[in-house]
């Protein structure tokens, strides 16, 4: 599979000269499978340039996997060109809620006063589906979604093809209430999704000092994400969901700190940036 990052900024789109190297678009990642299927992880503002890049040659079936309904993960959906194409089969998967179906939770974003066009009038008539609780197949990939620690219903995804796995946990606070270095692995949120993944895209929004003042906000510190990747045995850790207040220079310092924390055998660490690709 080929993985491309279209947006890796957290919370709020942050364009400008301070963020030009790693990018200001909010979360969006594509996964092109070997059978030609297109999977899209989250619909932050990064999905808008993706739609433009796909042009009229987009696949007839597109599956979008939403991790949760915070604005920075769905705000781009309305500006994703293929949703305006009635010939597209568009499936939107998302976290199951205990009480309301996905469609009714997303519908307010497609309605006045937030948007002029009602969801029922979107030409592609997207199908909204709760992510199943057990692994399912789309094209040549096996998809697993599991609830993870973040405020409100939130899932992470694992996409596996030909024995290689991508783990995507852009908003995740596994250290909330847990000592990640000592707790048994089966009691770590997100562990099964990330275990042995060739590439782990994981929340790394805060420095440790910032995290100490924002415990419970649903995001991870540099220290915690390095420990999480170590416990999960992930082979390549990509720091994701950059804080909108962090400049490129600050992100470089976070990467340097992550490399200081690495122990022998730990995953390689790098910063997510727009345009970054991986072949798995």
């Amino acid at each position, binding site marked *: 599979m080929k993985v491309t990052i279209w947006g890796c900024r957290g919370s709020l789109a942050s364009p400008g000269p301070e963020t030009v190297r790693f990018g200001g678009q909010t979360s969006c990642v594509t996964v092109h499978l070997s059978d030609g299927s297109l999977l899209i992880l989250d619909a932050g503002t990064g999905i808008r340039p993706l739609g433009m890049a796909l042009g009229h040659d987009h696949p007839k079936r597109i599956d979008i996997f939403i991790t949760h309904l915070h604005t920075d993960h769905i705000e781009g959906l309305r500006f994703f060109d293929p949703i305006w194409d009635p010939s597209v089969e568009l499936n939107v998967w998302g976290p199951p809620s205990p009480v309301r179906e996905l469609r009714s939770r997303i519908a307010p974003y497609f309605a006045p006063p937030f948007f002029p066009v009602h969801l029922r009038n979107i030409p592609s008539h997207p199908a909204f589906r709760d992510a199943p609780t057990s692994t399912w197949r789309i094209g040549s990939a096996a998809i697993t979604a599991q609830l993870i620690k973040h405020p409100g219903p939130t899932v992470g995804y694992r996409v596996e093809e030909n024995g290689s796995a991508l783990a995507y946990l852009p908003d995740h606070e596994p250290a909330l209430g847990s000592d990640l270095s000592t707790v048994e692995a089966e009691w770590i949120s997100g562990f099964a999704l990330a275990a042995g993944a060739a590439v782990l895209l994981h929340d790394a929004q805060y420095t440790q000092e910032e995290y100490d003042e924002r415990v419970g906000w649903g995001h991870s510190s540099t220290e915690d994400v390095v420990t999480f990747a170590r416990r999960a045995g*992930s082979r390549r850790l990509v720091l994701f969901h950059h804080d909108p207040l962090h400049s490129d220079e600050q992100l470089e310092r976070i990467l340097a700190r992550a490399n200081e924390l690495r122990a022998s055998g730990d995953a390689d660490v790098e910063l997510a940036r727009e345009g970054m690709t991986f072949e798995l």
Partner: protein
Amino acid sequence: MAEAHTQRNLILILARDLASRLATPVFVVDHEGTLVYFNEAAEPVLGRTYAETGELRAGEWATEWTPTDDEGRLIPLEDLPLGVAFREGRASHLPFRIVGGDGVARAIEATAFPLLIREGEIVGAIAVFWERPAEETAKR
């Protein structure tokens, strides 16, 4: 290398995280009724530590502490608060007696509720419990 590739349901992880920080005795079971955790506050009441018991299947923990009513009649699992929470998908409360792992008989009361993630889908249950005041126990 990754450790074993299995993981508990997030709701159970959150329940254990919460219980581990409470001064109220808490007992957590999974979707099969297996005891997966009780907190430090529960240990003096149960007369054992979780490190000693580890996980216990429903049929095991339901008899481990010999639950009886105030007249000494054994209470079957399905009538204990956790049993009701599972069977009927609702909260349940009951005063009863147990014999702790330390051999001490205690009068307790427990409230249990199911962990429902969707209508009809129970991923576990929680019981909170406490020792009844001695004077109340003596009246019975």
